[in-house]
């Protein structure tokens, strides 16, 4: 299995760079991942990441729509916070597996 170092920790990752084991995640690790893309995570970003981690942990489906209804941000805000492909990026930073949702 591939490994990558973030914030001094070795993280197990899959072929797409997603975490294999969400337990290896920490705020420092997430921040280091964002830094690689020239981004900095704020407290609001972490609120979204924690929301995603909680959803995934409970086995609930994760969609952009559900994040838009989370009360943390709306859909537009979510696109702004994680520019490009927000759900893919946010799940990457949240240390969970790649999203499998179509909406």
């Amino acid at each position: 299995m591939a490994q990558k170092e973030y914030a001094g920790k070795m993280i197990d990752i899959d072929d797409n760079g997603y975490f294999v084991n969400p337990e290896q995640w920490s705020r420092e690790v997430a921040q280091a991942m964002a830094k690689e893309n020239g981004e900095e995570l704020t407290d609001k970003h972490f609120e979204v990441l924690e929301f995603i981690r909680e959803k995934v942990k409970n086995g609930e489906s994760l969609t952009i729509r559900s994040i838009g209804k989370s009360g943390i941000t709306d859909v537009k805000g979510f696109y702004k916070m994680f520019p490009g492909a927000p759900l893919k990026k946010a799940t990457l930073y949240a240390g969970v597996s790649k999203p499998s949702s179509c909406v």
Partner: protein
Amino acid sequence: MADETKHPLKKVLMICAKGSLEDVLATLVMANGAVMEGIETKLFFTFFGLDGITKKRMNKLHTATVGNPAMRMPGGLPFPTLLGALPGVEAGVSAMMRKQIDELDIPRVDEFLEMIEAGGGEIYACKLAVDMFKLKKEDLADEVKDIITIGEFYEMADGLQTQIIFT
């Protein structure tokens, strides 16, 4: 040796010309999916597809119960065309379809349009079809950016790694 360099899709333009629930939703799922991937997305609604962006109609779209060979009864038996022709059957079946779609956490048409716009996707109405159905800008969803000609829509397909999809 074959060139294996990948050229991922950068821009996608979609044309929706049909107004049944499944035609419009298929377009919206694909468009929203493209937006989610960070692909620049433009949508063009024309002819009966305009129902999908017409305020009065967009959340009440129907699925055809006549002339639809894929239509099945719950349980899988064929759905007789003559049954589909009875008053109220199409409305009932359509309501059932919308309910099932909702259970899958797929948004309604109006919310889908909002999500696509929020992600930076652009929605256009076809001028010819708008004139033909005698519609006005205010009849259309707020997310509709403009009423344009097909020529203007094609002009947006500039640049490499761009695709046009007709649904």
